[in-house]
């Protein structure tokens, strides 16, 4: 099947993805897209990502979550009750046979599996909100909570508060990406004979990458951090925001004097370039009402696409701010084949932005098919652990293996 034993850069790398949240599944998805053989192990009730919207036909069901289809593309599925001793033994045996194990399980569940002892030669990457070791090991989390703890949340939203919460699973995608980097360093060490390793990846620390610049600066100059100023206002630079246009929205950033002068020319008001209220990006921030008073009415005279393209020609860093519908139709992204087709046997396929790395020599799967819960259980246990058909059926009878006989 797609992604299994293919020609990608990570072909032949054996990964166990025990999941637990979006972050772990995304880390596994990056491995699968690069050609690794990823086995997705879920409890019989299914991983939490199967409960995430959107759903085919708008009806919540485990086979048909769009997030599951994206996150599990190109993985094979195994459903095991590893709270039972025999189920845990199977996970340990598969871990011994793997190069890498990814898990974001509750700490007590991970401790019960004890994979570090069972599979000393594997790289084992544990993801958690606050770190698997340390005082926060048992604290629960969400994307918003991790962003709050990492100083990412505070500056977002209206001046009077409370801060707004970024939509979706952004902190977990970020954490899954960081976990992938960590895992690749461990696999590189293993390729040089380093043996196995246990890696502890904290989503809060991964998210801190965005705010640590402000923290380090504080250690240099002691200047108090700036307060939240409002939606799309990030002091001390202006304009660095999103403006309404005749239709849609355009993003504009002017940092250098040259960019500001070009912006003034672009909107047909070259005289503003010499206005002392707007002489520097800091001065423009201090005079932001006057600044927007000059810019907004002019920008409303043309559509966003006009300002985007004309701005880029004039060397003003501009951006189209595409809606989700527009994003799927942009010529540029189409030309780059940025979208892939994601499939599942029980849900209609859709197109979504694929893993974005473009390697000239090794393919990256764009899109792919996600497994049903437990879909490949029988074949995985036969192939990897050399179990006989009757041994496999006994596991089904004991309620250890969930491997429904499904129509193709």
């Amino acid at each position, binding site marked *: 099947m797609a992604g299994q034993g293919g020609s990608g850069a990570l072909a032949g790398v054996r990964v166990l993805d025990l999941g637990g949240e979006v972050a772990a599944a995304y880390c596994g998805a990056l491995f699968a897209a690069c050609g690794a053989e990823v086995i997705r192990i879920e409890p019989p009730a299914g991983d939490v990502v199967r409960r995430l*919207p*959107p759903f085919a036909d708008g009806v919540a069901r485990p086979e048909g979550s769009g997030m599951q289809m994206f996150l599990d593309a190109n993985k094979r599925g195994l459903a095991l009750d590893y709270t039972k001793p025999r189920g845990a033994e199977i996970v340990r045996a598969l871990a011994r046979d793997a190069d890498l194990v990814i898990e974001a399980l509750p700490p007590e569940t991970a401790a019960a599996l004890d994979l570090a002892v069972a599979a000393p030669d594997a790289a084992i990457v544990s993801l958690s909100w606050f770190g698997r070791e340390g005082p926060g090991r048992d604290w629960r989390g969400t994307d918003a909570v991790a962003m709050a703890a990492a100083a990412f949340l505070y500056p977002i939203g209206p001046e009077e508060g409370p801060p707004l919460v970024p939509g979706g699973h952004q902190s977990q995608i970020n954490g899954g990406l960081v976990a992938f980097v960590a895992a690749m360093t461990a696999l590189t060490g293993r390729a040089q004979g380093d043996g196995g390793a246990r890696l502890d990846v904290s989503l809060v620390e991964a998210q801190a990458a965005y705010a640590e610049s402000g923290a380090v600066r504080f250690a240099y100059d002691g200047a108090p951090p700036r307060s939240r100023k409002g939606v799309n206002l990030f002091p001390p630079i202006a304009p660095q925001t999103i403006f309404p246009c005749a239709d849609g929205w355009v993003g504009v950033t002017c*940092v250098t004097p040259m960019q500001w002068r070009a912006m003034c020319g672009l909107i047909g008001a070259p005289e503003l370039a010499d206005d002392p209220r707007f002489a520097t990006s800091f001065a423009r921030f201090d005079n932001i009402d006057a600044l927007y008073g000059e810019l907004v009415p002019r920008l409303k005279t043309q559509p966003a696409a006009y300002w985007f393209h004309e701005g*880029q020609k004039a060397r003003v860093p501009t951006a189209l*701010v595409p809606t989700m519908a527009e994003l799927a139709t942009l010529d540029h992204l189409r030309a780059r084949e940025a979208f892939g087709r994601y499939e599942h046997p029980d849900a209609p396929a859709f197109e979504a932005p694929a893993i974005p790395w473009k390697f000239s020599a090794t393919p990256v799967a764009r899109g792919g098919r996600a497994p049903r819960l437990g879909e490949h259980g029988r074949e995985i246990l036969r192939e990897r652990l050399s179990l006989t058909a009757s041994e496999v059926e006994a596991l089904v009878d004991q309620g250890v293996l969930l491997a429904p006989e499904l129509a193709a």
Partner: protein
Amino acid sequence: MSRPLTLRGIRILDLTMGWAGPLASRYLADEGAEVIKIEGPGHFDWWRGWDLGGKADANQTHEKSPNYNYNNRNKRGVAIDLTRPEGRALALRLAETCDAAIENQATGVMAKLGLTYEDLKAANPSIIMLSMPGFGAEGPWSAYRAYGSTVEQSSGLPHLTGRPEDPPAMCHIAYGDAAGGMSAAAALLVALFHRRRTGEGQRVDLAQVEGLMQFGIHGPITQAMTGAPPERLGRRHPLHVPHGVFPCAGEDRWIAAAVTVDEAWPPLARLLGREDWAADPALATPEGRRAIEDEIEQALAAFTAAREPQAAAEALRGAGVAAAPTVRSADLLSDPLLAARGFWVEIDRAHVGPKPHPLNPWSYEGVRTPIRSPAPTLGEHTEAVLRDLLNLPEAEIEALRAEGVVN
């Protein structure tokens, strides 16, 4: 005995500037890759100070940039004027000794310098070269310029954040930068893994906009599956109830909090003085609680508003509720959890003295990789690198220096 560095033996030619590119090479340098950073002797990394125009001032401001200093530690710094033919030749000779090169210049800059992937490949057939322009190296917009801010805007992410009445809402002053750095580090490690196994190098094209589009992946998926974008929920969550950001005692103090598992609801209800809620079977699930979400949020806000952020967090965590105060960037330096996990270390550097550094956000066997050296001063290792890697005699290096090719 200390653990060996996982990326030992890998050498990378680093032609990056700013935040995204240097952060990418820093992740690798931190784990033991030998990263050789090239700057122009008269035109240094603008991240040393974007108002300096690439030139040193009397105060040596370019050596005192917090951003530069923590993103370029563990690297060797070489000052070579790449606009001169002799400088280009040195860069190509260095590329011969490297496994990979990384650059984050605007599309076209490397071509102007004669340092494209094809140029490097002619010198070193198995080299990897990663480029990370905002919109990618190919496609109709490949020449367009981007900042961390416009990368976020271009990714469509702002449409996924905010309340229904808000404009598309940005999350960060330069979201694209750190995100691009991580994505580039990941892609480079994949290409290096392949090269180790096969000897084959390649070109890697990373569009930073496409990297950030992944962060909001639920958006395009929802649009494609349902024909409409995700609802803009402000501070709420599609599954968890309650989920939001609530006031704490003090000015502009808040706490993010959510019930993520059903077993946390009864203890929270009791904490809020609502034994009736704890006992009500209709409220046992998030679907049931959704009907009175406003009322639950008011009660939770009243509870947190009477407490300092840390006290509120401890009380809520004690009930099994996910919670964290909305700390500000400077607070990270003194954060007790980060301190307990050894996230920050202090190292000494010329011109600035001892200053804190955030380490890579992971540990091996509970141990973090220590920092081996501070960020180089401009051209600090020019002579050593030209001597050690290219075997240039002293007289030749002196001649290059006299002509202003190196510094």
